[in-house]
Structures are given as structure tokens and as C-alpha cells.
């Protein structure tokens, strides 16, 4: 088997001090192949953004290793590091914050072109910038505009254009549509689907919306409190979720309305106590779980793997 594009080996990242330690990533193992379209789904605080930043090589794990084509990315330097940066790019969550308010679109797009692709002549840059805008479905006239002159959807497309500048193999997109409204959001998500085909590119989408994950990706990893609790193909995950948390996420996922759904929102609020998953012993999902068994309070389960995927649970749902 050839070495995967990116691989996580027991990656952990801990935030906080002695008083309260948060394992944003807790011994995560992961393998991403070239051209793979994968999603990481979970609630706020699950460690999704930390994972995205690790994938793009923006933060170093405190323990464990992240491999790019078999080489530890922390040992990369010079040409090899540039190769990694060119191959793996990131699109941040908030397009309103990601752009420098004083830089116009041309300047913004020129940075990766100059530093990663080694372009320098004005004519060359202009041509490349125009081509990038075209790729993301924006008119060339926007090149001279400043961020405040763009709509949210346009800004996000410019950020995607910047990520595409180095002709990457893989894009990490952190909540690419959560700041946009429905119509703009559908446009941006369709763009990702299109790029995967036309540029033969893979991507990792970080989202709290499992419907977005299912729309864009072939594989879904469900995260909870720093752990990947279930991994499966999209089809399997949404029709037969095995981890109780995946099941819960799907239950409240946005779906096309039918008349039956109108009286929904029947969550039982009686047991609705906010808890700190980091203070829970054993499986951190236990306080919310309806399927908890004795073992759950002792130790975090170890992953069980079969042809349908992987699940971290002592008592998974069986179909």
C-alpha cells in the first residue's frame, strides 16, 4: 500500500492548565488518502478546529506524529516544507476575519502566488489572479475591490481562490458555510463539489452540520470531546449510525420538511444539565447517553473496526 497523503499517529493536543485540562485531540489516529472527500462532524468544543489546524500543519501536536506522504511534518524544512504547504491548504471559518481589510483581492491572491509558486512579474500575477477568480465563479472586476465591498459569499469564494493558488492536492475547510445564509452557502458548497471533480482534489470539511457533511463528503468522522467516536462511509453513517452520539446528531439534523415534522422539538429538558465532558470519568459522552453500560464509567472504550467503519463504544447500536 502506498503511503497516504496525511496520517495521524496518536496525535494529542492539550489546552489549559492544571485546574482544567481540555484534550482537544485525544490520541487521534487517522488516515487520509489523496482525493478523499471527508468530513469531521461534532459540536462546539469537540476539537474539530484543532484537528483542521493540525491537518494544515499550523499547530504542532504535543505528542504523536502527523505524517505527510510518510514523513513527519515537524521535521520538514526548505523545499519539502514548501511542497507540503503547496499540497495542503486551509480555508478558515470566518471569511469576514480571514481577509486583511486594507488589502484588495489582487494583493490577497498574490501572496501565495509569489511565495509558494514563485511568480513575480505583474503580468504573470494578474493573469493568475484572474484565472483563480474564474475558477471560483467570480467576475474578474472584483480584483481591485476591498473586502468590505464584497458580500459574505464573495469573500468566502475569494478565500477559496487563495487556497487554490498553489494548486493543492487537498483543502482543509473549517466550517466553510456556517457564516453564510442558505443561498450563498449552497453556492459555496457546490463549488467544493465541483472543484473535487475538475481539479482532482480532495478535501476535509469541518462542520457541526451533519447535512453539510453528507452533502459534500464520502466519509464522515464524528468527533466528541477530542475523540473520533465513529468513522464510516456517509451512506452507512446516515442510515445506520452506530455510536449513540452519531444517532443523536442525525436525529436533529436539518431535513426536508414533511408535515409530520412541524410539531417537532420534543427534546426532554428534564435531564438538561450542562456538564463538563472533561470531568467525566470513562466515556465522556456517558452523561448524555441512553445506552450506557457498566464499563462506560470505568474507561474510555477502544476502537472496534470492521468493514463498515470504526466505532468507539461499549454498547453500539446494532442493526
Amino acid at each position: 500500500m502506498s503511503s497516504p497523503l496525511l496520517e495521524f499517529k496518536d496525535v494529542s493536543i492539550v489546552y489549559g492548565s492544571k485546574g482544567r485540562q481540555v484534550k482537544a485531540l485525544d490520541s487521534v489516529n487517522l488516515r487520509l488518502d489523496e482525493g478523499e472527500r471527508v468530513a469531521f462532524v461534532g459540536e462546539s468544543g469537540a476539537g474539530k478546529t484543532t484537528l483542521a489546524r493540525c491537518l494544515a500543519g499550523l499547530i504542532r501536536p504535543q505528542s504523536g506524529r502527523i505524517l505527510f506522504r510518510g514523513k513527519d511534518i515537524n521535521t520538514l524544512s526548505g523545499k519539502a516544507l514548501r511542497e507540503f504547504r503547496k499540497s495542503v491548504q486551509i480555508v478558515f471559518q470566518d471569511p469576514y476575519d480571514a481577509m486583511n481589510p486594507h488589502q484588495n483581492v489582487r494583493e490577497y491572491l498574490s501572496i501565495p502566488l509569489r511565495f509558494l509558486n514563485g511568480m513575480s512579474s505583474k503580468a504573470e500575477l494578474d493573469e493568475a489572479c484572474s484565472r483563480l477568480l474564474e475558477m471560483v465563479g467570480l467576475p474578474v472586476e472584483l480584483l481591485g475591490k476591498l473586502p468590505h465591498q464584497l458580500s459574505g459569499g464573495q469573500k468566502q469564494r475569494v478565500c477559496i481562490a487563495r487556497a487554490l493558488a498553489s494548486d493543492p492536492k487537498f483543502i482543509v475547510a473549517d466550517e466553510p458555510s456556517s457564516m453564510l445564509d442558505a443561498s450563498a452557502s449552497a453556492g459555496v458548497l457546490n463549488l467544493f463539489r465541483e472543484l473535487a471533480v475538475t481539479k482532482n482534489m480532495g478535501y476535509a470539511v469541518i462542520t457541526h452540520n451533519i447535512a453539510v457533511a453528507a452533502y459534500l463528503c464520502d466519509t464522515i468522522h464524528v468527533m466528541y470531546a477530542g475523540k473520533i467516536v465513529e468513522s464510516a462511509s456517509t451512506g452507512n453513517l446516515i442510515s445506520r449510525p452506530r455510536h449513540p452520539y452519531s444517532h443523536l446528531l442525525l436525529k436533529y439534523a436539518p431535513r426536508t420538511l414533511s408535515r409530520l415534522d412541524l410539531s417537532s422539538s420534543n427534546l426532554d429538558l428534564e435531564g438538561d444539565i450542562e456538564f463538563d465532558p472533561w470531568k467525566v470519568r470513562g466515556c465522556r459522552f456517558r452523561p448524555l447517553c441512553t445506552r450506557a453500560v457498566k464499563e462506560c464509567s470505568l474507561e474510555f472504550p477502544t476502537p472496534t473496526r470492521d468493514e463498515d467503519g470504526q466505532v468507539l463504544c461499549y454498547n453500539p447500536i446494532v442493526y
Partner: protein
Amino acid sequence: MCWGLNIMFMEVERLRVSFPSVAGLLRAVDGVSFGVAEGEVLGLAGESGCGKTTTALSLLRLVRPPGVVEGSIVFDGKDIMELNDEGLREYRWKEVSMVFQGAMSSLNPVKKVGYQLVDTILDHTRLKRQEAIRLAEAALKKVRLPEDVLERFPHQLSGGQKQRVVIAMAIALNPRLIIADEPTTALDVLTQEKILTLLRDIVRSTGSAILFISHDLSVLAKICDRIAVMYMGRILEMGRKEDVLFSPAHPYTKGLIDSNITIDKRGSLVQPVGGSPDLVVGDVRGCRFNPRCAHATPECVASEPPRLEYRGGRSVYCYHPRYVENE
């Protein structure tokens, strides 16, 4: 149920909010009329910039100069546009309160939650401090937060808890109308579901009405009785949620519903509404949606579409509604 027969305690007529700008008079809200009935949840949908929040702010008379508010806002027979400072103090929070967008950042980071809750109550009533604290505790109980939250600072709470604190603030004086501006937008699905259930419970137990602002139709579907769809400062379609969502008459409403990404659409290609809205500067001729509309004809460009009345109190402004009702 026919909303036409319900008594509307809040009536907004031809509301218009303009701001001067270099380009000319910018109309954030341009002729909006609606009513809110006792105990109902009215949803206000639409893309960013369509005037949802500005509409809400004008109901509380929170639009500041140089913004100009025209039209009429009548609450319980009182003309809100005419209220003086003292009148406003009595009206705001006691009659109509608001959960502001971005609740996470609307709390003061250097004051304890309790101080902020009690202060709000004292500001709008003549209660003694002890009574205000009791009200604050009762409000926290209603949003299912423990009393010790009063002693905590905002950064010690999770996103969902902060949202609850802000809701507690809005319901503390038992107002007849709560305006909730995107109260679930920054939250993940489970927390979102909890907040929606909570707001539903509050409507049931206190009889307050809610004006619920959101661009997310799947959220509005869960909580609203009626939905109004806004576009470029105008309401294009308004009616019972089942009518608006299941048989949208306006092409824009249909477009919004179709561009919503849902779990069952993964195999298909979702079609967004092409183009984007413009700013409304000065007087607009014709239908505002016509540049993005697949059904637009010369008359849509030439003059304002008529108001069509449908069964169940629905109204639609369009020359080419998606279906015509025979009555």
C-alpha cells in the same frame, strides 16, 4: 385557525427606515406591514441585509439618528412613535424585550451575570434590589440554569448557557412580546434544539409572543406559527408556516426553501438562488426580486406587483405566483 380573526396587539404599518449615504437615501426597511397576535411565534426570514434586524430595532425605537423611521407602530392602542423617554422606559423590556443577535458578545465580560440581570430589571422597574434579585432567580429557573450562574462571569459559561442568560434577561419582566434575533445561529444542532424547545415552553407557559428572526428556514419551521419572508426591505410573502413552507407562492420563498441543504439531499444538487440582493437606494420601481427571478416579465420591472390574498390569511406580492388559488 384564522389569524385574521386573532387580535393583533402589535401592529406595524408601512414601516420605513432610511439612512443617508453617499449613494443616496438607503432604505433598510421599505414599507413593511405586519401584526403580532397574542401568544404566537412569528418568524421573519430572509438573507443577510434584507432588513430583518432593522425592523426589530425600530419596534423598540432603537434606531438612532441619522436613521429615520417612518410609518406607524401601534402597541395595545399606544402609538410607539410618539412615546417620550419615560414612556419608552415603561414600554421597553416590560412590554417588548429583545434577545440581541450574537448573545455571546452582548454580555459585559467584566461584570458578573447576576449584576447584569439585576441591573436590567432595576432599570425598567421601581423594584427594590432584593425583589429584583428574586425576579432574576426566577428567570434563571425558567431557562433551566442553576442559581449560582448569578455569581459567574460570562467567560465561565458555555455558548448555550450564555444564550440562556440573555433569554432569561429578556423574559425577566414577563413582556408580551420577545424579539429574538438569530438566537440559535452560532450554536450547534443539539444546543440549538434545546434553546428552541425552551423558547417554545416559554410561549406556552407565559403566553408571551415571539418575533423570531432567522435566515434558517429549518429553524423557523420548528418554532413558528406564521412566517414572513423579507427581501430588500419588503415582506414578499407572509402566512401560516405550513402554507409558506409547503406551498410557497412567491418564487423567492421557493428559492430559499430549495437552497436549504438537508440530510436527504446528499445525492442531488441543491440549486441556490442565483445572484445577490442589491441595496435599496431611493425609490424602487417594480418587483425587487425581478433581477434574480426566473419568471420575471416586463411588468415585473415596470411596476410594483399587486398584493394577492390567499386562504388562511396569507398574502403574497407577485405577478406570477407559483399557483393561483380559486376562491
